[in-house]
């Protein structure tokens, strides 16, 4: 199954390697939406996410020779998008990614059963409201499917920091969702 998914766009990718602009546009059409949403969940600002998308695709087309078919093209591209998004996030504000304070963590450590009436729109809005340090870890783990080892690589933090940031982030997210339910 894996080798099949990897090679789905092999022909297109090959044409991109040769600088075929039509193939590049097809690749853009195929991946831009998912990549944009990934960038947006990390950056939270539309213009910033669009800049990230643009930079990521340009970089991918320029460096397509370095894409080895040991992962899917989507996974390779997504990693570029995430790296650009994190860089952009760090550039946009001077505050360190991991320094945000949160209320007592243990208070919320009882699962998510209490939150009712979850909708996609509500969760999306709550994610964008998260402080950016939490937002990056939470979105990488919950939405992009990376594990803490991979997140620690991407963000340049330790695995345990990734774990604790994720836990705090998720609690903050639940807080935001509860607030939405109560007052929204």
């Amino acid at each position, binding site marked *: 199954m894996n080798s099949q998914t990897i090679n789905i766009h092999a022909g297109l990718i090959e044409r991109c390697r040769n600088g075929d602009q039509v193939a590049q546009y097809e690749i853009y059409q195929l991946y831009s939406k998912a990549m944009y949403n990934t960038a947006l969940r990390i950056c939270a600002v539309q213009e910033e996410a669009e800049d990230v998308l643009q930079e990521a695709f340009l970089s991918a087309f320029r460096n397509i020779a370095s894409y080895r078919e040991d992962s899917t093209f989507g996974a390779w591209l997504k990693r570029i998008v995430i790296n650009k998004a994190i860089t952009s996030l760090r550039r946009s504000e001077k505050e360190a990614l991991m320094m945000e304070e949160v209320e007592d963590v243990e208070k919320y450590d009882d699962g998510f059963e209490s939150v009712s009436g979850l909708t996609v729109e509500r969760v999306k809005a709550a994610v964008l409201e998260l402080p950016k340090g939490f937002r990056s870890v939470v979105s990488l783990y919950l939405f992009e499917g990376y594990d803490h080892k991979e997140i620690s690589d991407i963000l340049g933090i330790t695995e345990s920091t990734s774990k604790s940031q994720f836990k705090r982030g998720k609690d903050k*997210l639940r807080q935001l969702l509860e607030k939405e339910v109560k007052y929204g």
Partner: protein
Amino acid sequence: MGDQLEKFILDNRQEFDSEVPSEKVWQHIQQQQTKSDKWLGVWKVAAVILLISTVYLIVDKQLAEQKDSTTAMESEFYQVEQYYTQLIAQRKQEIATSGQSSLSREFLVEIERLDQMYAQLKQTYKSQNSSELISDMMIKNLQLRIEILNKQVKILNDLKNQENEANKHIEI
């Protein structure tokens, strides 16, 4: 696991990717790419010009050096030639004034033949852009003539000495 939120996100993962980037993004990507293509084109042209001018300068320099070495070789050869022709003229003079005209004439005919050969070689040398092989042959020709002339002078001198001896004998 078993987390309600995590499950909800997993179940509705596709729906979370609902935002669409603006058209501008692709336009900018295209613009940037043609820009970089243009620069790539400019760099290619610049590289080719640099390569051509470098090759031209190297070839030009080598040709100039070759020319220098050829002219140096030529002038050296003409010095050698001048030295030998002077020597040959001197020997010829000595033989001509020795008085043994009948004997000398045969030698001088032989020398004349070598002279002609030499004139031919010199013509070939000029038409063949100062070939080293021809100049070697010319120098050998000159040396051969000197050798012959030297032997002739020696023979004439020996003859003179014998005559003197004989004369002394008669006087006694």
